[in-house]
């Protein structure tokens, strides 16, 4: 069954909701608050890759229709204390769509602990980190929505559990154009969203010093090779006085990172990396950093559309990565 994924008006989205459709919705808070109650979950973000190209839009909402389920998906909030149960509670065959507000305790907790959740990697988990317009940073908090109750939350995670029939399977894939560069291997002693001291090619060093002294382009993420999956940690800022670097996802001890090799033409590179156009995508999202750094406003990333978010979830928290879901028969 073809999945509807599109940036549409609030009126059209409301019609879909009232018709009983099950939806995952992304949009500016002002747009989401106009939607009626129904079988949907949502998160705030005004950046999208629409069929017409990258756009910043506060009026419309991006809807992803959820189909193929064997029973009506279960929608619920998780708080920080219950978030670790998210995979254990997920359907035996199916997938879960997860939306977490940026800067919340759930965000930090998920980022650091998700790899160790019970049943993690056994059950497909896909989703994104809700954000805000960059002009609203520090003024308005990102939020998620439970459409069945209309409740908005700055702190809770909203989840949709989708059970599939036994002849269908959910598959999550990523498109990450970044590869480890030729620079030194960097490791850290602790898990954290920031770091100062580290090991650089095995010798004690400071990451902030390294990035500044070597004039590293901080639009490039740290990249680690997870058995062939390239996983990014994006750089948020460097504090020269404290000699610390802030990240958009945590670094983990025991993992070898390298600054990514530059990608000369993101659009060109992503075209060849995308799944084939005849592969039906049931859900997808990309990163706002890709939107900004690669200047994607007005440009298309092939046939893949979706919100451009403050972080992506493909089992665990990802940065500067496109994540997509396909249902395989």
């Amino acid at each position, binding site marked *: 069954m073809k999945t509807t994924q599109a940036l549409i008006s609030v009126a059209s989205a409301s019609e879909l909701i009232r018709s009983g459709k099950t939806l995952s919705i992304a949009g500016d808070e002002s747009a989401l608050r106009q939607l009626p109650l129904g079988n949907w979950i949502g998160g705030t973000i005004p950046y999208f890759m629409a069929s017409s190209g990258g756009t910043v839009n506060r009026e419309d909402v991006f809807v992803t229709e959820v189909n193929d389920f064997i029973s009506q998906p279960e929608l619920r909030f998780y708080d920080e204390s219950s978030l670790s*149960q998210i995979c254990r509670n997920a359907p035996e065959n199916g997938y879960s769509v997860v939306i977490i507000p940026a800067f919340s305790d759930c965000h930090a907790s998920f980022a650091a602990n998700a790899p160790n959740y019970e049943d993690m990697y056994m059950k497909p988990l896909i989703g994104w980190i809700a954000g805000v317009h960059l002009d609203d940073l520090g003024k308005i908090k990102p939020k998620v929505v439970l459409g069945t109750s209309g409740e908005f939350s700055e702190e809770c995670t909203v989840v949709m559990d989708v059970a599939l029939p036994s002849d269908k399977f959910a598959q999550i894939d990523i498109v990450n154009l970044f590869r480890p560069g030729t620079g030194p291997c960097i490791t850290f002693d602790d898990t954290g969203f920031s770091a100062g001291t580290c090991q650089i090619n095995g010798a004690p060093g400071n990451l902030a010093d390294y990035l500044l002294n070597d004039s590293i382009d901080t639009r490039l993420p740290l990249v680690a090779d997870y058995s062939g999956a390239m996983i990014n940690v994006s750089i948020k800022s460097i504090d020269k006085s404290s000699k610390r670097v802030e990240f958009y996802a945590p670094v983990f001890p025991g993992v070898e990172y390298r600054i990514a090799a530059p990608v000369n033409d993101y659009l060109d590179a992503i075209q060849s990396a995308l799944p084939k156009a005849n592969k039906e995508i049931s859900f997808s999202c990309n990163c706002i950093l890709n939107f900004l750094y690669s200047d994607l406003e007005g440009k298309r990333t092939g046939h893949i559309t979706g919100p451009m978010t403050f972080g992506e979830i493909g*089992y665990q928290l990802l940065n500067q990565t496109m994540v997509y879901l396909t249902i395989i028969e």
Partner: protein
Amino acid sequence: MKPEDMLRQALEIEAPWHISRMRNDLGKQQIDLWIAQEAPRSAWFFGAKSSSPQGNERIWRHVNIGKARCIVHAVPPSAPNQQPLPWFGETDQPFTHALARQIAGMFMEGVSFQAICSLLDIPVAELWKFKHNLDNGKAGLSSPQAVRTAPSTEPSNSAVPEAVDPVWEKLLDGSINLDIHALSLKLLLTKFREQFLLITDADVRMLKTHEMQRYFVRHEKLLGHELTQLVQLAGL
């Protein structure tokens, strides 16, 4: 006797401790109990109330209540008890003393890690942490002779090698590598390999290989590319 008093008795929660709060919505088939000390009564007409918590709340997995997991939340007493409280646990340990005794008893009877996890619905990571603490002298119990599980004698339609096949250990210790398409396998294998580097206990290593095999069994239909390679390597 009131039902809550029966629950206290069943869980060996004795005065001055009582169950101050209970939730059953934090996890599937899970009951969370908050246990606190009863404050001394200030007047004859006031009922028992909980004393204010001093220090950080700790959380342990306790013995199951029927099919449900039981999670205990409590603040350590300011004056440690001479006898360890059964529903309490040690710092940095995942289980209460009562559950640790139960698990230790199962080890003594030769029950395998995998079976303990299955029978008590305990996550592998928690049992591993507990066993790790045993092996490093952080707990007073020690494991008996090594436990080995026999390969299944039932015919299987699955192409996935048996859990006891040495190919799994080779995969986890990096002796063999696969060309992997599945994202979840890439991430899971990375996690297991990191853990495998740290695990020296044979039983715990076996548990990890069982977990890896369980992943392949669960996702067999999606792992054709990887399974073909694995079967070839298992046959070598």
